[in-house]
């Protein structure tokens, strides 16, 4: 396998891991939403992310060409083999925490996907084009919720600010580049995410400020997702997510 192809496989797997992990975290709200319509909305957003993961993993399996399928990527790898961003694996927390995390991710994808559409890799470009339209709806919803909760009651403001403070240190990793991603960016296949940081910070800060929330200082940062060093939370999440598949290997229905 050529260097570029191996790097594209790694990159596609990372994007798939991000999508499946966030999709699963969102899906944990199904049947626990604050009211029925919100519950359904969460289910819809989870489905978009899991669908996106399927597209990335299907392409990863095609690139790997070693007999693995999308299911092997999702269900048969351990936490150390997952390459998702740490932000996305954090437990769902309370409703404010989940919505703040969603906002941070939605703004990220709002900036990332239009760049990925430009990819010279036709499949990555097609997946990005497919996902952009959905992301507009996701961002509108998470933005509305953060405004409503931040600029809401004393209690909702307190919880939302706490979520922002707790999550902020996990956002820096989203804009890191390593050798693999740099090579793909240089070849017009991947996105140079380091160039998105300023725009992301501006958009997020505007929304937080409008929601009467304080933008945290950059006093700490945690990294490791892209090299497989995760928080303890991912292992527990995968245990639940992978349990049925691993208990019935090869089962078809």
């Amino acid at each position, binding site marked *: 396998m050529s260097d570029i192809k191996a790097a594209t496989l790694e990159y596609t797997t990372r994007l798939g891991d991000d999508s499946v992990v966030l999709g699963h975290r969102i899906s944990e709200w199904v049947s626990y939403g604050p009211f029925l319509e919100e519950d*359904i909305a969460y289910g819809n957003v989870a489905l978009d992310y899991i669908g996106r993961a399927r597209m990335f993993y299907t392409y990863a399996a095609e690139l790997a060409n070693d007999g693995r399928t999308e299911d092997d990527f999702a269900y048969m790898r351990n936490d150390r083999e997952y390459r998702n961003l740490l932000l996305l694996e954090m437990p769902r927390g309370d409703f404010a925490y989940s919505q703040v995390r969603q906002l941070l991710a939605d703004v990220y994808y709002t900036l990332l996907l239009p760049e990925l559409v430009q990819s010279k890799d036709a499949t990555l470009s*097609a997946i990005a084009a497919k996902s952009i339209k959905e992301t507009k709806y996701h961002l509108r919803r998470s933005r509305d919720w953060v405004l409503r909760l931040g600029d809401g009651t004393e209690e909702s403001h307190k919880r939302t600010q706490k979520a922002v403070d707790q999550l902020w240190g996990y956002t820096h990793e989203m804009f890191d580049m390593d050798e693999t991603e740099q090579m793909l960016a240089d070849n017009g296949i991947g996105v140079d995410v380091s160039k998105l940081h300023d725009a992301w910070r501006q958009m997020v800060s505007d929304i937080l400020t409008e929601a009467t929330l304080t933008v945290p200082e950059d006093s700490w940062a945690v990294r490791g997702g892209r090299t497989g060093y995760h928080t303890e939370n991912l292992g527990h999440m995968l245990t639940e997510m992978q349990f049925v598949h691993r208990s019935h290997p090869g089962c078809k229905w």
Partner: protein
Amino acid sequence: MNEISLMPEEQYQRLQQRSAADVKELWDLLDMVKDPEVPVLSIWDLGILRDIERIGGQIIVTITPTYSGCPAMDNIRTDVATALNDAGYADVTVNMSLSPAWSSEWMSLEGRKNLRNYGIAPPEDADLDEDGLTPDAHAQCPHCSSRNTRRISEFGSTACKALFQCNDCNEPFDYFKKI
């Protein structure tokens, strides 16, 4: 005249493609395959049937998903293969194509009418807001045609729909989102 039929460019291209196809009978045959979630729409009406080719004895059908996570796609894939198998075509391949991304503009005029009669407001029955997204009011009620309606939720019973309620007849209804 209460309806001037304005056909979007995408629609016109699709009709041209269908009428110029050398396997017209297969396009007609696949009209029987419906969206399992919205059974008044065929896969042609919905715009997810993209192409049909015959290479020797092999039939290759290309479909595209409406939304990334649309759970109906696996069913549709099976239904397409079954319909062709039952008609005597044994060698059938159904491919999934992601590009170009599906657009609600591809929905047929017939499909839009059927959707409205079924109780779901088609995409053009609401004026989009400034962000090009579903507005928070005034989608036309498919039951009583009132524009005095409000959005209940951006995300409806399936990924492709939003939920509205009519302030005049009080009926809730689905709106098929424009994307």
